[in-house]
């Protein structure tokens, strides 16, 4: 619990820094309200050390029976009849991150694979670092379904008791993981961007408040410690061919009646061709500074020359320069390409949070004080709509 001692001088310094607006000054004393998350920012800022958080001692529950770092394997449809599904890249990223955790804990790295048909996935999982693959093969696992997949994962966890379990922070991972965590009454940290082991616990770092602050989260009293991990953040290891994982086949009792939500139709964007913005390695993005819809079209040409995908700011979408499916930002898509080349985007916070984890950001904007330059590696001060056609010319000349 959090307590304010008599030492409080009523200076009010803690009130504005509280991320959750949880402090009110009542009778010249800080009083916490229900919004308090015990994050400790006020404890750090208090000039007279009047605020203290006391945590109840960790339960004496024995966690020594929980061993193994688990990675949930996500499959994705390819649209190809002979190989209808493949392992998503985020799974390999999780294996890369999980390998380090498992080595530190001196535990096995295990992949958890739910599929209707074994297509030799375990070889690939082994080459990316898995020691063991728990494989459940069942006809009812032909497509992702919340009820069916969570039932299987919960029973596997109960049977084998891992210490850590990681999921991709994808739509599927974010649908499945909270369901599993809720059923098991274990901690789950969303959308982590860094993981480490600290005193034997999984230290989970994640951005909050639209990326304005970072938080480190621990789940000390429950196992497994679960996290979803943002795609495109962790580095995957180079696959080692010939490195194999031990396959452990698991059974599951499943039938149709478990499936409460039925898919009537599925539309994947690769049906219509083109690379999806969330997976693009290069994004050429435009904003209001491109001036007109016609000039914005230059970015289509430019991105084609660079082998990238076009992105847009909310302003550009609102002005009708580009479809909403291309919008980058809080109300659009979060991206983290290798190269983010922006033209005429000033960089409102809601845009920045959606692209700032890109590897290299090159920003073109005529205002030298535009906030986009705060996250860019390279800034070009100039008129975006004039520079874009010159760049196209230069690229064509090569």
């Amino acid at each position, binding site marked *: 619990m959090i307590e304010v001692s008599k030492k409080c001088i009523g200076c009010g310094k803690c009130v*504005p820094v*509280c991320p959750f*607006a949880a402090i009110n000054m009542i009778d010249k004393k800080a009083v916490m309200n229900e919004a308090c998350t015990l994050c400790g920012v006020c404890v750090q800022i208090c000039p007279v050390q009047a605020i203290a958080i006391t945590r109840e001692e960790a339960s004496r529950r024995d966690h020594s029976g929980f061993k193994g770092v688990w990675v949930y394997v996500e499959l*994705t449809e390819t649209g190809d009849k002979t190989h209808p599904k493949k392992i998503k890249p985020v799974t390999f990223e999780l294996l890369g991150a999980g390998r380090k955790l498992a080595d530190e804990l001196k535990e096995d790295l295990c992949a958890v694979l739910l599929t209707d048909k074994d297509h030799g996935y375990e070889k690939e999982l082994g080459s990316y670092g898995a020691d063991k693959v728990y494989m459940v093969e069942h006809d009812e696992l032909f497509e992702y379904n919340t009820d069916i997949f969570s039932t299987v994962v919960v029973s596997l966890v109960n049977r084998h008791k891992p210490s850590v379990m990681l999921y991709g922070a994808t739509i599927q991972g974010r649908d499945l993981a909270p369901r599993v965590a809720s059923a098991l009454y274990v901690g789950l940290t*969303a959308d982590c961007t860094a993981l480490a082991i600290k005193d034997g616990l999984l230290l989970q770092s994640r951005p909050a408040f639209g990326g*304005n602050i970072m938080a480190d989260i*621990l789940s000390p009293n429950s196992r497994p410690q679960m996290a979803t991990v943002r795609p495109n953040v962790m580095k995957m290891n180079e696959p080692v061919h010939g490195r194999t994982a031990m396959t452990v086949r698991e059974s599951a009792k499943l039938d149709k009646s478990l499936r409460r939500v039925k898919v009537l139709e599925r539309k994947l*964007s690769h049906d219509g061709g083109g690379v999806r913005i969330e997976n693009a390695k290069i994004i050429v993005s435009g904003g209001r500074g491109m001036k007109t819809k016609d000039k914005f079209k230059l970015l289509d040409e430019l991105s084609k020359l660079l082998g990238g995908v076009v992105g847009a700011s909310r302003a550009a979408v609102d002005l009708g320069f580009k479809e909403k499916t291309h919008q980058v930002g809080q109300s659009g898509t979060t991206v983290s390409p290798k190269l983010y080349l922006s033209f005429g985007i000033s960089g409102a916070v809601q845009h920045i949070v959606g692209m700032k984890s890109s590897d290299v950001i090159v920003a073109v904007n005529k205002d030298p004080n535009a906030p986009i330059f705060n996250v860019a590696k390279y*800034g070009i001060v100039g008129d975006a709509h004039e520079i874009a056609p010159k760049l196209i010319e230069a690229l064509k000349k090569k």
Partner: protein
Amino acid sequence: MNIVVCVKQVPDTTEVKINPETGTLIRNGVPSIINPYDHFALQTALELKKKHGFRVTVVSMGPPQAKSVVQMGLALGADEGVLLSDMAFAGSDTWATSYALAKAVKKIGKTDMIFCGMQAIDGDTAQTGPAIAQHLGMAQVTFCEHVEVDGRRIIARKQIDGGYETVECRPPALFTMIMHKDYVPKYPSFLAVHASLAKPYHVWSAEDIGAEAQYLGLKGSPTQVSKIYPPPQKEKAEMFAGSGQAAAERILEIMRKEHFTQ
């Protein structure tokens, strides 16, 4: 059918600034708003009410001032409002929050559909909705853009990784909503707000909803915040100013340097 909509009051994170010296948030002047995803969830529920005559209850958990988001729901057309407010909830993570909200739904009574925003813009976890569904043993459909009801059939269009699905389920079920592209948020008029003051509104404590103290607040939360700190600062950008031609040359040079072109 009876619908419950879960809403959260959040600071407008697009307005939040950081004090560069202390690395703490500057909240002064940052407005508290209804979480935008919850706003869309609320509007979706109210459209269903309009079309089918369903009953809509708005629930929030938070400090007393969070009343305003429940009131907004009432002013936009909801029938009843509930605020869960109790110091026992302080420090609740998504597990403990979803436990309390699930308890509240049980107290509200027979519920056919629950609507939540996909995530809140302050926490960005997207976990509370699915966790409520699990606590209540309900089906869930997450990342929905559109939900319609045809008799006992519920049809939802939802985002999946790399595309969309149209799915079908039966009540009871929980839906988490993302915004679709044509969505325009509605705000109540002053008169509507005034009129909504007459609608049933309750403030419930942990005891009122029959929540066990051991599952609430910090004690009931499996996750704990160990530290909050400013995100690492990026190094200052290498700046260049120049006309079209020179700027284009500079971009090419950068791309060569960063190995994007030969």
